[in-house]
């Protein structure tokens, strides 16, 4: 329990306001129930089934969702809940999100799918100018909190310029919405249900590389995982690594390699990028004195920059080395050059060593 709590209080730092289990096991909400080994798209599918089951004002719509979606995340929904609640839209992202905002403004849970995060830009105006500011500018008379936008993001090995992008940083710059990214099937189900039920508009990015690749025991019942709570998924004492989504598995491999060289790495899954859990990350950095952030999106202006700046503000004197960022390069997401562009295990390992030996 409260080892950290006690220290925090003693030092008058008042860091931790509540208990957070330091555990490498995934936080399961309420515990047991039957768990089955399923992949990411099945977990998301389960979450959507539960969302529509438990709230008869929930709707799922987007391009090709009716037959199950291009990644099979919406399989079976149209058959089970009917065409009035699960339906296809024409090819018009701006229209889809605008429509979703309106639906949510009437008190419904609008779960919009954007087929690939690369296509979300026509809807950017709606998200930034309409969804994010609705509650604020109407003095709380109206809101579109029931809106959840789901989009597959990230590299997939052969996606090229328009099927691989990670646009999370653009959205993290918008007060009024939340940005959530799960790392695994069990996380995805719980987080998605939380996003859908959260009273704020949320953009939920799903790592498409993991749709089939990631398989995990996922409880079959309805459970939610808390938003804005980061999780320490690996304990360590020499350096803190912060990441999200598919990149975490790459970072984990780097941590394992670093372990062989005697470097003990602590790995944190941010889970919610906006608003992000500064306390957990800060507490970890106070322990280790070093931090490395890694994401697929280009390094300049990526979300790692925000984390870096915040940590430096809060932990300047504790830091033993500059904050390291191992990210995508400052180029458009390339076609044949993808292996060079990506923040690979070796690049991370290099940066871990450089930081530890600073």
């Amino acid at each position, binding site marked *: 329990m409260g080892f950290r709590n006690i220290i925090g209080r003693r030092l008058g730092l008042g860091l931790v306001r509540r208990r957070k289990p330091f555990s490498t096991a995934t936080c399961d909400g309420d515990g047991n129930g039957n768990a089955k080994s399923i992949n990411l798209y099945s977990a998301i599918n389960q979450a959507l089934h539960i969302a529509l089951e438990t709230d008869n004002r929930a709707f799922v719509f987007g391009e090709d969702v009716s037959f199950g979606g291009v990644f099979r995340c919406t399989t079976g929904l149209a058959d089970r809940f009917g065409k009035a609640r699960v339906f296809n839209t024409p*090819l*018009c992202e701006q229209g889809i999100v605008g429509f979703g905002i309106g639906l949510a403004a009437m008190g419904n849970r609008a779960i919009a799918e954007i087929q690939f995060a*690369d296509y979300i830009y026509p809807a950017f105006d709606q998200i930034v100018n309409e969804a994010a500011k609705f509650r604020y500018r109407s003095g709380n008379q109206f809101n579109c909190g029931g809106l959840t936008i789901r989009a597959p993001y990230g590299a997939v090995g*052969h996606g*090229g*310029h328009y099927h691989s992008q990670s646009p999370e940083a653009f959205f993290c710059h918008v007060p009024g919405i939340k940005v959530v990214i799960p790392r695994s099937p069990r996380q995805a189900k719980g987080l998605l249900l939380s996003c859908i039920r959260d009273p704020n508009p949320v953009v939920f990015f799903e790592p498409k590389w993991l749709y089939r690749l990631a398989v995990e025991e996922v409880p079959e019942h309805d459970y939610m995982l808390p938003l804005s709570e980061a999780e320490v998924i690996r304990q360590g004492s020499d350096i803190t690594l912060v990441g999200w989504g598919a990149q975490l598995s790459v970072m984990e491999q780097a941590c394992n390699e670093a372990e062989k060289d005697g470097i003990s790495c602590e790995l944190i899954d941010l889970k919610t990028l906006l608003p992000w859990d500064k306390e957990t990350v800060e507490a970890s950095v106070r322990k280790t004195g070093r931090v490395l952030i890694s994401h697929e999106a280009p390094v300049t202006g990526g979300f790692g920059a925000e984390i870096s700046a915040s940590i430096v503000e809060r932990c300047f004197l504790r830091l033993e080395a500059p904050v390291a960022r191992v990210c995508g*390069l400052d*180029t458009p997401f390339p*076609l044949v*050059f993808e292996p060079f562009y990506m923040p690979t295990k070796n690049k991370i390992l290099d940066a871990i060593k450089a930081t530890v030996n600073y």
Partner: protein
Amino acid sequence: MALSRLASSSSSSRSADLLKPLCSAISLRRPISTDTTPITVETSVPFTSHQCDTPSRSVQTNAKELLTFFRDMALMRRMEIAADSLYKAKLIRGFCHLYDGQEAVAVGMEASITKKDCIIAAYRDHCTFVARGGTLLEVFAELMGRQAGCSRGKGGSMHFYKKDSNFYGGHGIVGAQVPLGCGLAFAQKYSKDEAVTFALYGDGAANQGQLFEALNISALWDLPAILVCENNHYGMGTAEWRAAKSPAYYKRGDYAPGLKVDGMDALAVKQACTFAKEHALKNGPIILEMDTYRYHGHSMSDPGSTYRTRDEITGVRQERDPVERIRKLILSHDLATEKELKDIEKEIRKEVDDAIAQAKENPLPESSELFTNVYAKGLGVESFGADRKEVRAVLP
């Protein structure tokens, strides 16, 4: 089926008719491939229009043109099928959207315009690129991501460009190319080029808001923009009637005139594009809806049979195939023998195979190419490697 009528003025063809039995035995034939004696052919169906007159159903053509059509379309067909095999052999990776079935649109359009006219298209662009003068080597090399590709291997299937023939590519984001096309048209009008821009898009893209924005601007400013909807009736797997309230895409311009064309008839396409170019230069934008069909699925990951029946596909292949239409025309007008056409096809096969072999030998781009052309050269911007540090090592 097209009815053929020999132009009454071409007495030479009539005499050739009489001489046929003798000529076929001895090769005393007139050189068919360069014969430009006019032949008039009727299009398969009449044109339907919205807010404008229809062009005549009778199209002027000649042996040379028909044989060129045949050759070009057969080449495109062969090329796309070869790309299919290459993709399955994992030599082409990523995305590959094949155009077979739609060749008549590319070929007919090219026949009606010059290289000063611009064409801008979406991602199903291999054949449009070839029609604009691209070589097979450039196609296969780009598909396989090699240096000899038209975009130096950095674009891939969806991003073919050819600057010297004003082919502005090759766009992955659906509908994004149409406002660009209107911008091109503005530039042409401003420079008094007497040229037009053809902005191609599909039935799926027809529901994008930016299309209507672009059309409004073009109509307001009388731009020589021709918006061509290549309606193959399926937006990925969604049939047009499920995505559009009005699948009469040629009418959706409302205030802008439109023409519906049989996109499987190269001559109809040629006629429509000639008409459209004349119209656009005088009166501003016009929409052409090409009623066409793709035999393959949306992309290589789509079998193409889950949302349409195999009968439908074979039906179109049997009744409306663009290459077969031209073959029948050529044979019925006696412009070449079956054997000659088959020889052309054999030649094409060999050309395609040679190009593929050459492309396979071609090297991948240098790793330093990862950083080139992000910005204009010499702008003093460096690309940073991971962790914001300069790239010190030369990548392997």
